[in-house]
């Protein structure tokens, strides 16, 4: 019997996202995938999926979906006032929705995006090995009213399995003033001493012209030595590029694979998830760290995920 979700209202924007499609940048294909990978991974583990399985990423507010058959779900990420049949839905906790139950994201409290996992994972067409929506590139589309999203056949629940919850201490804490760690380079020689100082001390406001491709910021301009144009070269996810107006742009998971602006820094991998939580008008400060510190942070994140994978296993 088919189980899954029916979309009654996609809200502001809801897409199917998974861990993305890495290693296609040489073709000019961005990796896509949930902006907040930690929230996607935990939501999946909570319902007994592998961490990178396909789920929903919804932005701000308005998503309303209905359970088709009995489904096990989890909502993680920002607090978008999720309601389950009109009552506050549990966050970072798995629960079972009966057929016809509704889950609705009323308005955003803190954070900007939420992930919704479905036990079994959302069955969706694959493009280049991933179900992640990249509408601009013809890889599926934003969800619409009436879409029926079946679950892949989930493993049967073992008799001793139970609902799961992420310890509150491990949940990202809500904020509107973010601190993002970066490794300076590769084009630091294109910026003046003052420019680098400005970048590392000023608070930048997240522009409303920010999306999954990149986050624009507004703040004191970062001064360059002789302009910001370079011969286009590869721009990995997390690149902080500074165009002619001096306002840093952080390239994210739908971002271009090559670019012609000097890049002052790269966001460390374990801090990229934060951009999935930021709202327009939130502020961000950039803190320079060493590569060793970035590797330590990445290792800590992997250990936590390994621990949760074991702790939440069926």
């Amino acid at each position, binding site marked *: 019997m088919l189980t899954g979700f029916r979309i009654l209202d996609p809200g502001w924007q809801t897409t199917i996202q998974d861990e993305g499609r*890495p*290693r296609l940048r040489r*073709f000019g294909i961005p990796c896509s995938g949930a902006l907040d990978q930690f929230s996607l991974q935990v939501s999946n583990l909570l319902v007994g999926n592998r961490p990178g399985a396909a789920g929903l990423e919804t932005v701000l507010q308005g998503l309303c979906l209905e359970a088709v058959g009995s489904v096990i779900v989890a909502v993680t990420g920002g607090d978008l006032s999720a309601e389950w049949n009109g009552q506050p839905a549990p966050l970072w906790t798995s629960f079972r929705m009966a057929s016809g139950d509704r889950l609705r994201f009323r308005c955003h409290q803190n954070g900007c995006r939420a992930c919704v996992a479905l036990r079994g994972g959302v069955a969706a067409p694959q493009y280049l090995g991933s179900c992640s929506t990249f509408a601009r590139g013809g890889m599926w589309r934003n969800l619409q009213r009436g879409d029926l999203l079946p679950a892949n056949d989930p493993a049967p629940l073992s008799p001793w399995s139970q609902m799961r919850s992420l310890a509150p201490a491990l949940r990202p804490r809500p904020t509107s003033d973010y601190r993002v760690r970066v490794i300076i380079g590769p084009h630091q020689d294109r910026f003046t001493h003052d420019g680098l100082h400005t970048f590392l001390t000023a608070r930048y406001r997240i522009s409303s012209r920010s999306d999954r491709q990149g986050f624009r910021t507004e703040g004191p301009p970062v001064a360059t030595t002789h302009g910001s144009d370079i*011969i*286009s070269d590869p721009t*990995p996810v997390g690149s902080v590029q500074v165009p002619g107006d001096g306002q840093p742009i952080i390239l994210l998971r739908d971002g271009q694979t*090559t670019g012609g602006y000097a890049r002052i820094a790269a966001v460390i991998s374990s801090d990229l998830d934060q951009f999935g939580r930021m709202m327009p008008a939130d502020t961000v400060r950039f803190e320079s760290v060493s590569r060793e510190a*970035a590797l330590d942070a990445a290792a800590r994140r992997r250990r936590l995920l390994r621990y949760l994978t074991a702790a939440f296993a069926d």
Partner: protein
Amino acid sequence: MTDEVSRPPQLHRIVPVGEDGLLVEFAAEISPTINRAVRRLSTALEQSGLTGVLEIVPAYRSLLVSFDSRLVELSPLRAAITAIAETLEDQPLPPSRLFRLPTVYGGSYGPDLDHVCNASGLAADEVIDLFSRQRFPVCCLGFLCCLAYLGGVPHPLQLPRRATPRLRVPAGAVGIANAQAVVLPIELPSGFHYLGRTFVSLYDPQQFPPTPIRPGDVVEFPAVSAEAAQEWTGQFPGVCDVDRISNSGPGLADDHSG
């Protein structure tokens, strides 16, 4: 040009990018010699199967090597890349293929043809003739959806970008700015001058690879009627004359000036 007989270009520098990338740079110029060195190094690195290397992304004058820092440390990887870069003289490249993309020029298909005529002092026929006879080398793929960065725009047609970029330019639009030409794989914003449009598909995310074109190939935009161009709607371009184009010989990749 004599670049094939002289020493191949030297590495400019190798710098870390983020925690798991190395940016390998040759001299900061757009030139066929430099780009060929990039493609040679990229091919050599692909073939060497260095432990821990996840992906190699070549561009005009640089390439990004991303790696798993649990499997390989930065300094030995940097040393290995430097050593491989010393042996590029003997590195063969994959065969260069010629793609012909039937293109309809001018009118609503090429809204900037008149501007290019005014700026270059050439008649429309002359611009179309010059452009459609040119062979454009593919320097790299990038931006979004396999956009091919083409070099080799002939001098009279080299114009700076539009002051105000267009917000929407359709897939298939064929445009120029400075020494660069592009053919858009999807609708994109762009500041290039658009001379014409092809209906050949250059991007299909249901295929692997998602584009038939690869760096080192050569592209032509022969002028055809709107009807003939539209017959190609949705089809991948055919490969022409694989053997006629050689990477080792003179010509083609060399006649694109930076």
